[in-house]
C-alpha cells in the first residue's frame, strides 16, 4: 500500500465529518425536536462543559418529559476550531437539527452564529464569552445564555478597581474571546479612574509556559495582572505566577474568567484568595442544591458549573417554548422560536427567574466569589464564598450600548 495525496485528503476529510444522524421516517421527523450540543470534548475547555454539558442537556429533556413530541439530543466535538464547528453546524441544520447549544470558544461561537443566521435556525450559545454575540454580531436567531465578557469585566474588574487595584496589565489569549475580555475590562478600569499599563497577547492554544509573559507584566509594575484567558491557560498562568512569586510582590491576579473545575484542578492551596465571577454555584441556595442533587447520577462526583448547567437551563426553556408554539412552527423558523423564547419569562432551579432581552441577552444575576482557604473548605467542591451579587438587570451591558442592529433605539 502506498499513500497517495488523494488518500490522505480523503482520510483527513473523513475524520472531520460527522457520522450521519440516524434517519427518521417523515412522520417521526415532523414530530421530533432535535437539539445539537456542539462543544469541546477533547481539548482545553472539555471539563468546563464537554461531556458534563451533554449530561445536563439530557437531564433537561428528561425533566421536561413527554408533551406530545419527541426530543432527540445529538452531540459533536468542534475541537475549538471555527471551521470544524461551522461545518458541523451547517450539516446538522441541513439534516434537521432545530437548535444548536453550548459552543464554547468565542471564535467558534461566532462562526456558528453566522451559520444559524443564514439557515434561520435557533442557536443558544452558553459556552462562549464574547459580548459581540449580542452586540455587533447579534442575530434574531441567537440567544446568549450565560456569562459574557462585559458581565465578567464589570463584576470582577469593577470589584478589583474598587479594592484599590487601579493599574492593570493584561495577559491575553490572542483570539476573539481574549480581545473582547481585555477590551471590556479596560473600559471598566478606565471608567473607574484606573489605568492600563500594557498588555501582551500570546498565541492560543499553543502556549503552555506563561512565565515570560508574567515577568513582562511585572516589569511594568501594575497592581493587578488581568488574565484574559480561560481553562488550562488560566490554570497554568496562576500556577506559574505563584512559582515566580508574582503575588508576593503585592501584585494581584484577576482571573477574569474562571470556572469551578479550574479551581478544582488548581487545588485550594494555589487557588485560595482568588476572586472570580460565575452566575451559578451549586451550593448557592436550595434550588441550586436541588438541581445539583438531581444531576448527581449523571455527573457522578463532579459538580456542575455555570457553563455545563446552562445547557440544562436553556434546553428546558426552549422545549417550553416549543410546547407553547407547536412543533411545526418551531421547526419552520428559528426566528419565530427565538422570539417565542424571548416572550416567555425564564425560570429554573439553576438560575431562578429571569428573562431574555430583545438583543438575545439572557439576564441572570452575576456573583462575585472568593476561593476559600483549604481550612475553610468542609467537603469536596466546597470552594466559594459569596462576596457580592449584581442583580440581573445591572449585570449586563445596557441594551442600547451593544450596537445590535435590530434593536430599536
Amino acid at each position, binding site marked *: 500500500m502506498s499513500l497517495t495525496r488523494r488518500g490522505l485528503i480523503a482520510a483527513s476529510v473523513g475524520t472531520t465529518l460527522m457520522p450521519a444522524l440516524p434517519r427518521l421516517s417523515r412522520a417521526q421527523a415532523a414530530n421530533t425536536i432535535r437539539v445539537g450540543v456542539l462543544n469541546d470534548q477533547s481539548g482545553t*475547555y472539555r*471539563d468546563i462543559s464537554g461531556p458534563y454539558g451533554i449530561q445536563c442537556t439530557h437531564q433537561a429533556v428528561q425533566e421536561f418529559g413527554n408533551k406530545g413530541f419527541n426530543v432527540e439530543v445529538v452531540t459533536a466535538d468542534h475541537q475549538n476550531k471555527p471551521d470544524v464547528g461551522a461545518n458541523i453546524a451547517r450539516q446538522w441544520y441541513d439534516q434537521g437539527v432545530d437548535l444548536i447549544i453550548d459552543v464554547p470558544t468565542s471564535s467558534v461561537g461566532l462562526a456558528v452564529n453566522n451559520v444559524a443566521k443564514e439557515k434561520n435556525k435557533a442557536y443558544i450559545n452558553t459556552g462562549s464569552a464574547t459580548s459581540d454575540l449580542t452586540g455587533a454580531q447579534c442575530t434574531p436567531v441567537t440567544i446568549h445564555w450565560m456569562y459574557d465578557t462585559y458581565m465578567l469585566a464589570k463584576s470582577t474588574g469593577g470589584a478589583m478597581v474598587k479594592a484599590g487595584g487601579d493599574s492593570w496589565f493584561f495577559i491575553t489569549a490572542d483570539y476573539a474571546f481574549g480581545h473582547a475580555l481585555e477590551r471590556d475590562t479596560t473600559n471598566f478600569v478606565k471608567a473607574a479612574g484606573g489605568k492600563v499599563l500594557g498588555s501582551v497577547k500570546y*498565541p492560543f492554544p*499553543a502556549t503552555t509556559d506563561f512565565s*515570560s509573559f508574567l515577568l*513582562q507584566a511585572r516589569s511594568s509594575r501594575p497592581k493587578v495582572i488581568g488574565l484574559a484567558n480561560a481553562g488550562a491557560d488560566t490554570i497554568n498562568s496562576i500556577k506559574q505566577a505563584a*512559582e515566580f512569586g508574582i503575588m508576593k510582590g503585592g501584585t494581584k491576579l484577576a482571573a477574569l474568567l474562571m470556572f469551578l473545575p479550574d479551581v478544582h484542578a488548581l487545588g485550594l492551596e494555589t487557588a485560595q484568595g482568588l476572586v472570580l465571577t460565575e452566575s451559578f454555584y451549586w451550593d448557592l441556595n436550595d434550588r441550586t442544591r436541588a438541581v445539583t442533587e438531581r444531576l448527581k447520577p449523571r455527573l457522578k462526583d463532579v459538580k456542575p458549573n455555570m457553563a455545563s448547567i446552562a445547557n440544562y437551563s436553556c434546553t428546558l426553556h426552549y422545549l417550553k417554548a416549543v410546547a407553547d408554539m407547536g412543533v411545526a412552527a418551531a421547526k419552520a423558523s428559528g426566528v419565530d422560536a427565538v422570539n417565542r423564547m424571548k416572550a416567555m419569562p425564564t425560570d429554573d432551579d439553576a438560575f431562578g427567574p429571569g428573562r431574555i432581552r430583545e438583543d438575545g441577552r439572557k439576564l441572570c444575576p452575576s456573583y462575585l466569589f472568593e476561593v476559600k482557604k483549604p481550612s475553610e473548605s468542609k467537603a469536596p467542591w466546597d470552594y466559594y464564598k459569596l462576596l457580592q451579587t449584581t442583580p440581573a438587570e445591572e449585570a449586563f451591558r445596557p441594551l442600547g450600548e451593544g450596537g445590535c442592529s435590530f434593536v430599536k433605539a
Partner: protein
Amino acid sequence: MDDIFGIPAPLLFGQLLLGLINGAFYAMLSLGLAVIFGLLNIVNMAHGAQFMMGAFAAWMLLAWGGIGYWWALILAPIIVGITGVIMEKLFISKLYKLDHLYGLLLTFGLALIIEGVFRNEFGSSGLPYRIPPELSGAWDLGFMFMPVYRGWVVIAALILCLATWLMIEKTRLGAYLRAATENAALVQAFGVNVPRMITLTYGFGVALAAVGGVLAAPIYSVNPQMGSNLIIVVFAVVVIGGMGSILGSVLTGFALGIVEGLTKVFWPEASATVIFVIMAIVLLARPAGLFGRA
C-alpha cells in the same frame, strides 16, 4: 537602567534565562526522539503522550501510593519505559522493514489512543502536583526572581543529555548500538542479541520522555494534552537539529528555547510560529538539518 533594543536589560536577561529553561524541555524530549530515530529509524509520534504518561505516573505515585517526587523521578521513567518496551514488542517491531511513514502513523495513532484514555479517565483541566519542598522557593538574582525548581530543571536536563550522549558515543554498549543500526546482521553474527537491544533502546528513549514529564509535572498542570502541545515544537527542533543527531538535537533544543523566549518579548503573537519559520528556512538551506548528515 540600560535598555537593549528598547527592552530593559533585566527583563531581557530574565527572558533569556526562561528561554533556556524551556529549551531544557525541548532538549530532553528531542534527545529521546533522536535516540529512537537514530537507532531504530522510527519517527516516534507517541513521544508527547509518553511525556504526559511520565507526569501522570508521578501524580499517581503520589496520590495513590504516597510516593514523593524523588522516587517518582526514578520510578515513573521505569514504569513508562516498560510500557514502551511492551509497545515495541507488540506493535513497532513489526514495522522495521517498512517505510518510515508506517511507524509514524502507528505511533501517532497510539498517541491519540493513549491521550483519549487519559482524558476519559482524568478530564482535561489537569491535576495539581506540588513542587517538592526541597526545591520550592526562589533566588533573587537582582534582574529576576528565579524559582529554585526551574534551576533544577536546567541542571537535570544538562546532566541527562550529557550522560546519554556519552553513553551512546563513548561506551561499548553505545558502540554496539550504533553498529547494529549500520548493519544489524553483522552485529548479530558477533553474538549480540540485536532485537532485544533495539527493544531496550526504545524503552530507554521512552523513559527519557517520562523523565521530562516528571520534571514538568510541578510546573505545568498535569493534563492529557500537555504532551501534544509540546510534541510538534519538539519535532521541529529535531528536524532543525538533523534527524537522529543526538548532539544536534540537544544544542538545537536549548538554542530554540532561547529564540522563542526572545520572540515572546519582541513579538509575543509570533512566539508559537517562530520555530516553524526557522524550520522552513533550515530545510531550504540545509535539508539534512544543522547537524545532520546528508
